[in-house]
């Protein structure tokens, strides 16, 4: 039943509720699809077929027993390899964690399991989520299902590729500077970065603690909202977790009424350096929203121009400290432990072998930025910029309900194109980074294909802290308006992947 893989999560849930398909059948269909296409896509680092089928069977049994199940029970999902799952290999895309099986579940994973969601496996990512292309994975690049010669975005390239290759209807990503939204834009899917603290970081292998945010990836707005509702909410294990009710995201995704909604186009996020096809689709989308009754104004956020440098000081600083624990002493890779080397030497040899070039680059950057004598000039200054950016947002939200921009300046680039030019790579996150620095909610929704290359373009929506519902409202409105033009969601325009096995 290969068409099961073409269904949305909401549709699959409906099929299970009405008894037309079982979770085992649905899970098996997706495992078959992974088997058939993942050789070409390489979205997964680890497929847990046995575990997934056992979870699926358990859900089927509970349903058969008449148990009241949560809305997504039995639906399969792909999990970014940066979240711990008890007993399942978790590497964060790094050699240094090769073979590590965590002894505990991340809170997000626990919530997925509690909701009966079936975890198919772990998806590829840039090492420790450092990168915008998934080319920095220690385990090979993931390919963009729209064009296998292109990158799927990063760092969550595996998660977005998995859903756009129909290997899973849902995926979990984490967004530190755009790692959910940018791959979403590049693969024509929905990617949401919830409010920082709206989803728990417990069990998320930290890149930059003050920025990391787990979030949903899906092919439709409603699916993303359904998943968002499962994973969000206060977690006493994460002290930065916000203790407030989860915004009504599902209701917003079902309703999608933008009449009277005030939308601000961020002046600074557009123009020079932006691909014409991206800008064209973005402006059309804004037009569409206007037609649906939204009020659109141009808004200025003058400090956004400093977001990138501030981000590239804060992130490596926190990362250099977070990654210090990978010392070969307790878990993961250990190199040079032949009885002749000291603990320090074993640590050095292991780090040399276990960390990739980008990770080493950022550790050195961060170590320098935090060192005495430089702290004030770098880290301290970056934190001030961060405050200014948050103020830009606050001021903007006084005028409008949400802010919008293209999700990325360009469409997906070719594999290898920017790997030797870190700055060019970093610039890809220009639009997404300010939301991470301010901690507010943001998402990318598909808004068409660029004329130049026929690749997906992402429409970026930003909303105030704990107003994640507004993202879904805009996303749903846009999705239904565009579906009329396209005869379905954008994903239906994706080329068929050749089955390799």
């Amino acid at each position: 039943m290969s068409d099961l893989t073409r269904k949305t999560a909401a549709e699959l849930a409906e099929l299970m509720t009405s008894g037309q398909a079982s979770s085992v059948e649905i899970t098996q269909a997706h495992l078959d699809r992974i088997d058939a296409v993942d050789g070409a896509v390489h979205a997964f680092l680890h497929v847990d077929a046995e575990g997934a089928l056992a979870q699926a069977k358990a859900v089927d049994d509970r349903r058969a027993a008449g148990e009241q199940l949560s809305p997504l029970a039995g639906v399969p999902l792909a999990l970014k390899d940066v979240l711990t799952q008890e007993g399942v290999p978790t590497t964060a895309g790094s050699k240094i964690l090769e073979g590590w099986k965590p002894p505990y579940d991340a809170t997000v994973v626990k919530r997925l399991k509690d909701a009966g969601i079936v975890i198919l496996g772990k998806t590829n990512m840039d090492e420790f989520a450092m990168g915008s292309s998934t080319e920095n994975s220690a385990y090979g690049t993931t390919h963009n299902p729209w064009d296998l010669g292109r990158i799927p975005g990063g760092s969550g390239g595996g998660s977005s590729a998995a859903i756009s290759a129909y290997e899973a209807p849902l995926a979990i990503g984490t967004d530190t500077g755009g790692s959910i939204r940018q791959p979403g834009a590049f693969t024509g899917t929905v990617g949401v970065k919830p409010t920082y603290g709206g989803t728990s970081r417990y069990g998320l292998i930290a890149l930059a603690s003050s920025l990391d945010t787990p979030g949903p990836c899906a092919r439709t707005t409603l699916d993303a909202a359904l998943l968002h509702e499962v994973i969000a909410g206060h977690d006493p294990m994460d002290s930065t977790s916000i203790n407030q009710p989860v915004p009504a995201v599902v209701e917003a995704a079902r309703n999608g009424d933008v009449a009277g909604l005030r939308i601000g186009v961020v002046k600074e996020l557009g123009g020079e350096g932006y691909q014409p096809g991206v800008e064209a689709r973005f402006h059309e989308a804004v037009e569409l929203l206007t037609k649906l009754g939204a009020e659109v104004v141009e808004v200025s956020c003058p400090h956004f121009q400093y977001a990138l440098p501030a981000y590239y000081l804060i992130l490596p600083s926190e990362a250099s400290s977070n990654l210090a624990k990978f010392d070969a002493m307790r878990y993961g890779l250990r190199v040079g432990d032949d009885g002749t080397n000291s603990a320090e030497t074993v640590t050095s040899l292991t780090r040399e072998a276990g960390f990739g070039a980008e990770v080493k680059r950022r550790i050195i950057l961060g170590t320098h930025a935090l060192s005495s004598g430089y702290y004030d000039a770098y880290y301290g200054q970056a934190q001030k910029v961060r405050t200014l950016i948050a103020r830009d947002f606050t001021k903007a939200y006084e005028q409008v309900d949400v802010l919008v921009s293209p999700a990325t300046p360009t469409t997906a680039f070719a594999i290898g194109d920017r790997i030797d030019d870190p700055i060019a790579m970093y610039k890809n996150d220009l639009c997404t980074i300010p939301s991470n620095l301010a901690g507010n909610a943001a998402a990318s929704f598909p808004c068409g294909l660029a004329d130049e290359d026929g690749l997906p373009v992402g429409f970026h929506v930003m909303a105030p802290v704990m107003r994640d519902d507004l993202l879904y409202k805009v996303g749903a409105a846009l999705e239904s308006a565009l579906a009329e033009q396209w005869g379905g969601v954008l994903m239906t325009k994706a080329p068929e992947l050749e089955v390799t096995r």
Partner: protein
Amino acid sequence: MTIAAEVMPIDKALAQYDPVMGLEVHVELNTKSKMFCGCPTEFGAAPNTQTCPVCLGLPGALPVVNARAVESAIKIGLALNCEIAEWCRFARKNYFYPDMPKNFQTSQYDEPIAFNGWTEVVVDGETYRIEIERAHMEEDTGKSTHIGGATGRIHGASHSLVDYNRAGIPLIEIVTKTIEVPGEKAAAVARAYVSMLRDLLLALDVSDVRMDQGSLRCDANVSLKPRGATTFGTRTETKNVNSFRSVERAVTYEITRQAAVLSTGGKVIQETRHWHEDTGITTSGREKSDAEDYRYFPEPDLVPVAPSREWVEELRATLPEPPSVRRARLQQEWGFTDLEMRDVVNGNALELIVSTIELGVPPSAAKKWWLGELARYANESGTELGSLDVGPGEVAEVQKLVDDGTLNDKLARQVFEGLLAGEGTPAEIIEKRGLALVSDDSALLEAIDRAIAANPDVVEKVNSGKPAAAGALIGAVMKDMRGQADAAKVRQLLNEKLGI
């Protein structure tokens, strides 16, 4: 490791140099769970049995602050007359050590919870004021055991074992400002300060303050400046000094060592030093320059700590009477001399005596039993005074029997002996051992007659005008009565008999 330097006699050293001290005391709190997770904190559990992803620093795990530890920190701050921060943060102190799971310590840096305090210590009747720089919260590290070397240190070891049970136990670090007291008092003041802190922490019930278990550890910074100079000399930091006596000895040793170095034109190296209890010296540890870079930054995994003023005031209201104040009050109430009071305190008998007196025992009697019979037994059996089978209740019961004439002191001691041997209640022991005083005059008179008959020489001395010689007869009677006679009564009857 350098060989111990020559030292200069302390008197000579102090004639030339003024010592300057700074003391850092680490206190393990007695919270049930760790600083940032729910793991238990019991001392002595099997290695690595009290750990979880958080205190092991596993990838993905996050800390959550133990509210009880914050409460203890505030109490300590208040008891040391500190200001309590309205808003403070944790910071990461980044350095590498195998027994530190995250390779950074979650600590407080420029925003401690308590700061700008003061306290006082008394040495030889003189009161010294110690300024407190700060008291901040942090987590303890794990514990390494080095196997295979001769010294138990890492040098020469074939491998090391790490126990993470202690990793994450809440610590408070109390840091003094520079202490400048007359040089000859410096070491004694250091000792008195640590001792005072211990009493204070016990009274606050925030720590077990077991120095032998490492729950109270002192780092002593010492430097010397030539007499009359205004600029400070280079300091050394002697780490983890583990008893009051050692604090005093370590400070003295560093003064004499540094004086010897300086007087020969040498330079004191800024370094950490290890204290050796057995030899009473310090040896060079790691060189510590000002350039040591911990790359502190605010801990992004934790939200700031902002204790409300209401809470702080509630806690202030619960503070006990400061130990030094209480001690002075009790000494006066009990009428003890300074020396007597010091024996009580040094003998860890203060609280036991307080409880015993509360049960109606006169202070002198309470002191006599606890510092005499019971302290001796505790000492011999290697147990703590407070954990004997005899408590204030038993002491009060025995004293009551003495007061009503059932027992004299000698018999009372035998009752304690029976109690400590687990022979039952005082009544049972008196019964079993036949210990009660003989109050029957005829039995005493018979014994007196026997004593007179057996000691004609003594009687003659008494009759020849030496009544003091009668003491020997009392002794004989008491012996005859196997101690079970009231000595005063015996004396009275004997005197009547001899016509004294």
